[in-house]
């Protein structure tokens, strides 16, 4: 159970313009680097104070490595974080307004209530 870490990844990438581009271009490399170097960094502390135990599950790591946002939704990632980051990466690939947002909704159309729990 590491929904918190999935959300931490989405949060950290979304707030950093360079990481947004890096994750778009190289998701496998970015997820690997981030889990190795950044996952246990305590965000409010200097770099030497770190947690020791945070890691993705295999399903989480694979969903992040493949930009699989329907899978992230199913795993209980926070949908606001997921949507915001994926808009930043892929809205540019759609010519029409809201094209990506509507595709996102279509790809999640197989989900109905109750949605996966997003509590961490």
């Amino acid at each position, binding site marked *: 159970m590491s929904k*918190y870490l999935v*959300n*931490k990844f989405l*949060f950290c990438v*979304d*707030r950093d*313009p360079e990481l947004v581009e890096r994750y778009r271009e190289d998701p496998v490399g970015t997820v690997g680097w981030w889990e190795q170097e950044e996952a246990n960094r*305590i*965000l*409010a502390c200097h770099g030497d104070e770190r947690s020791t135990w945070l890691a993705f599950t295999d399903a989480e790591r694979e969903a992040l490595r493949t930009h699989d946002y329907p899978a992230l*939704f199913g795993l209980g990632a*926070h*949908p*606001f*974080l*997921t*949507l*915001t980051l994926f*808009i*930043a990466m892929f809205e540019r690939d759609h010519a029409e307004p*809201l094209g990506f*947002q*509507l595709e*996102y*909704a*279509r790809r*999640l*159309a*197989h*989900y*109905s*209530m*109750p*949605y996966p*729990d*997003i*509590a*961490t």
Partner: protein
Amino acid sequence: MAEIVAVVASTHHPFYYRASTATGEDRPPFADEWVRKIEAFRATLTAARPDVLLMVGSDHFHQLWLDNMPQFLVGHAEQYDANWYNEEREFGLPRMHMLGDRDLSGHLLRNGLDMGFDLAFSNELRIDHSVTCPIITLRPQNDLPIVPVYTNIFAPPLPQPKRFVQLGQAIREMVESWPSDKRVAIIGTGHLSLELGGPRQFGPHGPDPEFDRKAVEWIATGDIEKTLAEVTLESLHAPGNATHGFMDFMLMMGVAGEGQKADHVDSLDLFHTMEAYFTWYPNGVPQPAGGAA
């Protein structure tokens, strides 16, 4: 004692800034009607002649994060920077800067704690679009000090709806007991039905127009009892996965008071959400100098 001159509740659509400033082919077809409604809404705050704005909103995982998440937080800073890189990126929002009112912040913190609300505080709070959008819509000259009050409507576990109403009632009491001659407007923003990051997002209307119709009626009539009877943390998922922001509207109903009818009620059915605007004048509708309202 301070005087509450207006209680204002609205949605905080981050696309308003871009829509209202767009020109030519970039200007969406609904922009002019939206601007007209906002300008009428803005007049309800202007007429009240506030000196300070107490602003209720919710951080969207900008400064507040899951490693240390408060339920209710009061900004206690002299100044506030506002808006974030990803809000510039997604909504075209400008960076902003506001003055604070530390005296009112301190009054809320001390008295809130004494009234049973374990309020968090922040001496360096960078605020986001839940507070800046109502500045853009209601006070674009951005010339008044603010006190931000952030609520958690976003990261479960959330406080119960009743707690939002109670905090609104307490905020009203606390402002009225503030030893100041300032004229205070209390402004809060929330959502009606809304889905973000789920299968029902960005449709031609909000995900649940029937909920929206009922919610506007509850707010406009100040029917706190009925709202609390129909809304629970669990039920709020049904009208859309982001509808828990409706609890910030419930907080503002608490500020306005049970059974208090709003003096200004308006709404606009936009794609993917319904915009809604309410103003109460606790001391009566201000009359323009020398003439009828």
